């Protein structure tokens, strides 16, 4: 541990903001788990902002893992020099996502039970398993880095992380893509969207949270390319939805979704952190849009209860779960920075 950390290091505006987020979001999360239901859900619209929060944060963490694995495999020193901070970011953001998921599932134990009663035909089971493996791999890499153990295992671990992270992102898309009865979800397209959006948000998070000139340049290069690919994907979807005559398809993409990615990709060098944030918000917009829109058409008898097409607006408790997920991630990243970054590897 870093012996130089004192209580005074926690009396900062950042930590006060994090504490407020943890208390407000934590209160809502605990109430939801143990006392009653606060979210704006019903039996036809079951996955709302808390699940969007999980997917947003999990994919962002995946993106950071992918960038780091790429750096390790390609021996890009601009990235590998920041291995430890990037590992801390990836772990913190993933655990922030898991926190949001736990409130959505109603219990931490439910997340463990997924692994104990497996159904290999279920994309959610694969998603849970792959993210569990990814978390373990990230911890192994962090512990090895803290102990200064670098050598023959680095490359296999990097490849392992790359494969697992990519598979996890693709599997999140499959959770929606394998739904046969909802046209806004169905198909392989969402797996491509989740994989590319992971790369966009992960690279953007590195630019935003780790402003170091060489790292910003390396991560910014990946961000620009991924953002342009993502913009092309959105444009393809807009064109497809404009021509679609599929019954029950509302369409989640719109042409304005291209703007944040095109602007951020083209002007990144002017204001890297601000435009990285724009890119992250753009990814959140896309993910929120497809997850919610896919459920708005009520199926079968649910139309009697909730109308043929629902509307959705997040309520304050749901927004606080978003705050909670981000606050947990921020707290873990700050703790990692304060306690682990300054530490030198053992000789």
């Amino acid at each position, binding site marked *: 541990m870093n012996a130089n950390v004192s209580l005074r290091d926690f009396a900062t505006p950042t930590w006060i903001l994090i504490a407020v987020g943890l208390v407000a979001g934590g209160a809502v999360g605990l109430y939801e788990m143990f006392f*009653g*239901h606060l*979210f704006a*859900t019903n*039996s*036809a619209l*079951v*996955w709302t902002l808390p699940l969007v929060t999980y997917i947003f944060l999990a994919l962002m963490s995946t993106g950071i893992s992918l960038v780091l694995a790429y750096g390790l495999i390609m021996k890009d020193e601009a990235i590998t020099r920041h291995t430890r901070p990037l590992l801390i970011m990836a772990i913190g953001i993933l655990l922030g996502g898991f926190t949001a998921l736990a409130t959505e*599932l*109603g*219990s931490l134990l*439910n*997340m463990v*039970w*997924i692994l104990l*009663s*497996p*159904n290999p*035909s*279920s*994309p*959610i*089971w694969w998603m*849970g398993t792959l993210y569990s493996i990814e978390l373990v791999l990230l911890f192994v890499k962090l512990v090895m880095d803290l102990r200064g153990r670098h050598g023959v295992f680095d490359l296999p671990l990097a490849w392992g992380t790359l494969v697992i992270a990519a598979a996890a992102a693709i599997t999140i898309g499959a*959770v929606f893509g*394998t*739904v*046969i*009865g*909802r046209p806004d*979800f169905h198909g392989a397209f969402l797996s491509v969207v989740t994989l590319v959006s992971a790369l966009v948000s992960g690279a953007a998070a590195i630019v935003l949270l780790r402003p170091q000139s060489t790292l910003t340049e390396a991560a910014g290069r990946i961000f620009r390319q991924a953002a342009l690919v993502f913009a092309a994907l959105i444009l393809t979807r807009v064109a497809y939805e404009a021509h679609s005559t599929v019954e029950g398809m509302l369409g989640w993409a719109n042409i304005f979704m291209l703007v944040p990615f095109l602007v951020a990709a083209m002007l990144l060098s002017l204001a890297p952190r601000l435009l990285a944030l724009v890119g992250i918000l753009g990814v959140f917009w896309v993910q929120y849009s497809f997850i919610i829109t896919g*459920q708005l058409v*009520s*199926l*079968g*008898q*649910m*139309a*009697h*209860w909730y109308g043929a097409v629902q509307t959705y607006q997040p309520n304050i408790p749901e927004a606080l779960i978003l705050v909670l997920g981000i606050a947990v991630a921020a707290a873990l990243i700050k703790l990692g920075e304060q306690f682990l970054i300054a530490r030198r590897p053992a000789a």
Partner: protein
Amino acid sequence: MGYGMVIDQQLCVGCAACTIACKIENNTPVGFNWCDKITRTSGKFPNVRYEYISTMCNHCDNAPCVAACPTQAMYKDAGTGLTLHDTNKCIGCKACIVACPYGVISFNWQRPHQHWAQRDQLAEGCFSPREMLEESGGEGSPHGNPERGTTYPVVRPAGSVEKCTFCDHRLLEGLAPACVDACPSGARQFGDIDDPNSEVSRLVAKHGGKGLREELGTRPRVIYLRDYTPQRRFDPFRPAGEDQGA
């Protein structure tokens, strides 16, 4: 052996007795029904058409909810063909609800029937809901059917989905599902749809029939026979006083 149900649309009068019978038999909470309906209005006056389609879990052979469930809480019973649910394994991920193309799975966001746990008296000198529950010895509500509990919890827990089981507890006793017994017009028939000599198979062979959204490949075990065709239509241009029929 595989249970299935046929619903003859020509015989169904849209009385919703099936819905009520199911609610009573299975103690479903306020806010959703296992057995419910789709209604469709089509056409242009005077040639309008109103359809009442009774719905419930289709117990699909290729059930999307079973494939989507990460913990095998939703499963196919090999002996009966029923799609059943184990609340002990359910983690509340709601993947089955999203995956089901029929909208027949519901989620308990809160503990069902919880108003019956209240100790406040409704009026001075009256029983409280809790006292009524204790007096009746019921579970969940004073009207809770204890026989439901032989195969599925009488009151399903908060954080768990629930859905039609084709009254599997009644099937074990040799009885038909409650909705079938309650149907006043005999529109519902139930039996071994895998046996070509069963009554349900004979009805399907005679009238044809199809399941809901069959194009998705789910192979539902609820088959709808004959579209409802009124024998005589209301004709606004027929002279007053002439029998308009039904």
